[in-house]
């Protein structure tokens, strides 16, 4: 059981972070941007691999994380810059911007994976067999939290706490921006700065969530908790509280079921959170009818 402790702690820290940010993601309708960022992270992993940085050592883990986070932030800010209106003359709409960045990053990731694999084959010719490339891709796409070491867990917990702290410090600015972005500039709150700050946090959070749920499901951990919480309340503080409770309950139950039934943990957590969402939807339907 003790060997699972870093896995459990990391998952809970990431869930609390996901529950906090997801209120903004849902109400500001950033779910698709989240998908774009998580898929862009795949390109970041490709860059780390082609540079020969593997997550087999502590230095490698931190190096790979830095590159992936950097690439994801660049992708998030790239999406924001592409879709930002220039003096009210929109250059590219957000959907298109996400579509472009997402596809380009995924394509770049696959190309770099292939190049890294052939380079590795060439370098290691006649030596010990290398890690199966397809298995690695699968891990990145769907996550493998069981690989979480104490190093990875410590980094994940520290970053999750940092993101929660920064969100708390900027909570009023974020709420005003997410509630009514078009007027924030008129009140001295730069919408561009706020957008960039939030998307940077979102990019880092998604890379953290990827460790649990992988590229494909990471964004779900930043959507489901708030979607469920907002079915239960129309008040601000309870919304954040319910979102965090639903995120951590989903993560705990998901991990439990995953460990018991030997299921992949990330998808088990996302499925549990989806189930909780359905329960809250049912509660909302019943209470609004009566």
């Amino acid at each position, binding site marked *: 059981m003790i060997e699972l402790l870093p896995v459990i702690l990391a998952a809970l820290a990431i869930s609390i972070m996901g529950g906090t940010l997801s209120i903004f993601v849902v109400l500001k309708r950033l779910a698709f941007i989240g998908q774009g960022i998580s898929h862009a992270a795949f390109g970041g992993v490709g860059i780390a691999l082609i540079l020969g940085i593997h997550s087999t050592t502590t230095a490698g883990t931190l190096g790979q994380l830095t590159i992936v986070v950097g690439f994801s932030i660049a992708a998030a800010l790239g999406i924001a810059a592409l879709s930002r209106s220039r003096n009210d003359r929109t250059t590219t709409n957000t959907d298109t911007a996400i579509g472009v960045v997402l596809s380009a990053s995924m394509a770049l990731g696959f190309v770099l994976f292939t190049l890294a694999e052939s380079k590795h084959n060439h370098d290691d010719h006649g030596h010990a067999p290398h890690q199966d490339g397809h298995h690695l891709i699968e891990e990145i796409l769907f996550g493998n939290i069981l690989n979480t070491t104490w190093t990875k867990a410590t980094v994940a917990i520290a970053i999750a706490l940092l993101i929660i702290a920064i969100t708390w*410090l900027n909570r009023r600015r974020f709420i*005003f921006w997410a*509630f*009514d*972005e078009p007027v924030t500039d*008129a009140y*001295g709150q730069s919408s561009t700065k706020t957008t960039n700050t939030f998307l940077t946090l979102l990019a880092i959070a998604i890379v953290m969530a990827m460790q649990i749920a992988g590229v494909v499901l990471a964004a779900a951990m930043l959507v489901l908790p708030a979607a469920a919480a*907002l079915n239960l309340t129309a008040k601000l503080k309870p919304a954040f509280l319910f979102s965090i409770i639903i995120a951590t309950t989903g993560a705990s139950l998901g991990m439990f079921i995953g460990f018991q039934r030997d299921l992949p943990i990330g998808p088990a957590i996302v499925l549990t959170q989806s189930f909780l969402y359905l329960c809250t939807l049912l509660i909302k339907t019943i209470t609004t009818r009566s």
Partner: protein
Amino acid sequence: MTTPVHPAVQINQVSYTYPPTGLGTKPNIALDNINFTIDQHTKLGILGPNGGGKSTLIKLILGILKPTTGSIKILGQSPTKARNQGLIGYLPQKIQADLNWPLSVKQTIALPRACNLKPWQQLTKNDHDAIDHAIELVELQDLINRPIGTLSGGQLQRAMIARAIATNPKLLVLDEPTVGVDIAGQQHFATLIDTLHTQLDLTVIIVTHDMRAIAATTNRVACLAKTLHFHNTPEGLTPAVLAQVFAHDVAGAFGDIHIDAHLADSCDDPTHAHQHQHDCGCDHSNDSGGDT
């Protein structure tokens, strides 16, 4: 030594040109050499056709855009400084706020004030007093705990006006405030603006293409179609002035259709206007640079 009384808004030779939006498009001159001064406590209506530069002028006054040429002072300071000090209240044309947010009416109105606090600070008694006073002025005190998304259109507009005045601004800018409001609502709105103007000692700028809103709420009017024409109407807007303004409005949509050819000519051509000043009831003494 007394502190100088600055005009609420001072605009000197301001032009604004939007850059080309793509290949084969040209820069778009939205405002061309605008000059005007708005004294404090004025209620000014700015009337103009779509594409006449109304929104651009608002963004320049709010400091969201910087003029291509010229300068703007709000209460003697740059628009950015004035805005950051909470001296400008703003009601947008279209309320685009996400009404699904789990915010109460009071939380919504408090947002701009709360954003000026340090993260660890809470709203003080002064803040609460200012917010409560704003809520009373717009008569929403019975709804402060209601979710913002449950308000009717008229109530929501009043909540947004309360948000605009909760920072104790000196200048209130209203962008097309009467779009989609029925006659009874417009009368109520006019009374509300009058109350705010008197009780808060505000300078009010209403930008609109709705002549009824101008006639009901302002004591001075400017007509904006890339350049600016001023009309002082201390006795209120006369039918003659409205006819001129309407000529501009119609011209923006349908070309040079004049309601009254003589009056409209006099406003389109300032040199001509001076000759007919008496006839049209306008005072062009504030026109500067001839055509601006």
